């Protein structure tokens, strides 16, 4: 992954976040195009290693997007994902990447607007850092 166009990798749970992304598309809500969505069966499937590998391959930010807290079809998937993201954030701080470049996001399947807002927020955060 080359360095110049900073990419955002978004692991999207197929029950909620992936549907929210589809809804954003169908409502023609435009968001930055440096996002790459990877479909996962549950946010709980995303491992610390996947996130670190994404950064290793040059990603500038990673979003782990799962169902709302308490509405996960697999009961603990999104809670575990949140803990793993917190652990990965501490690992990244050790390495020197701080500014919470990895974020856990909870979405309902109809939250097209919020999906776009989260992506824009991460893109602006990265834009801010790139310029400094």
């Amino acid at each position, binding site marked *: 992954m080359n360095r110049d166009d900073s990419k955002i990798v978004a692991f999207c749970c197929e029950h909620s976040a992936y549907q929210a992304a589809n809804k954003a598309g169908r409502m023609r809500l435009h968001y930055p195009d440096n996002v790459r969505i990877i479909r996962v069966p549950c946010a709980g499937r995303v*491992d*610390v*290693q996947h996130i*670190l*590998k994404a*950064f*290793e391959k040059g990603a500038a930010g990673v979003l782990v997007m799962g169902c709302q807290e308490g509405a996960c079809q697999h009961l603990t998937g999104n809670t575990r994902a949140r803990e793993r993201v917190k652990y990965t954030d501490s*690992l*990244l701080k*050790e*390495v*020197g*990447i701080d500014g919470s470049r990895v974020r856990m996001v909870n979405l309902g399947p109809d939250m097209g607007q919020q999906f776009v807002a989260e992506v824009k927020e991460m893109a602006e955060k990265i834009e801010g850092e790139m310029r400094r």
Partner: protein
Amino acid sequence: MIIAERKPLEEIKNMLSGYKEILVVGCRTCVTICWAGGEKEVGILSSQLKLASSREGNELSILEATVERQCEKEMVIEELRDKVQEVEAILSMGCGVGVQTIAEIFEEKPVFPALNTTFIGMPEAEGVWVEKCGACGDCMLYWTGGICPVVRCAKGLLNGPCGGTRRGGKCEVDPEKDCAWVLIYRRLEKQGRLDLMERYYEPKNYRAVKRPGRIEAATA
């Protein structure tokens, strides 16, 4: 089983400064079970090292390997024999025994520990391990109802409990922890062996096992 904990990244980076090709070696037994040095942790540490080195400009090339048991010579040799040739230094994620076994076999390459071997213990909850045995070489569990005061009493008293035990049977030194001797008392009480509490025990011979320990079993 042996419980270990990973060293902070800063310390590991300082150890590796000056070396370009590193072999990170995990171990599949104790340190996998306590989430410290298994194949997954090898992947995580390698990613961290690659990320840190690429940010600082000195590109590290990292090889990853995982041995079934690092404390078994044959397994170490079989797994690492040809990988060791391609690297300058070895970073072992095994317990202290693993690090030394690899160092003995591949004497020409420096071997660095990535973990701190902490204690012999067991899982208390998911992701939480507690110390139970200090390997003192002279087990006295028979008269303390199966609770070891040498390790689980903060002061290692043999004729406890000390005067400072807190309300609710908590330890004076660390209010979170239970006082080992209160636990011992309650268990002996349940078994009706409270007479053992009255006996006076002489100070313990901590040189029962001459360091470094060595055991020779009768060869079958």
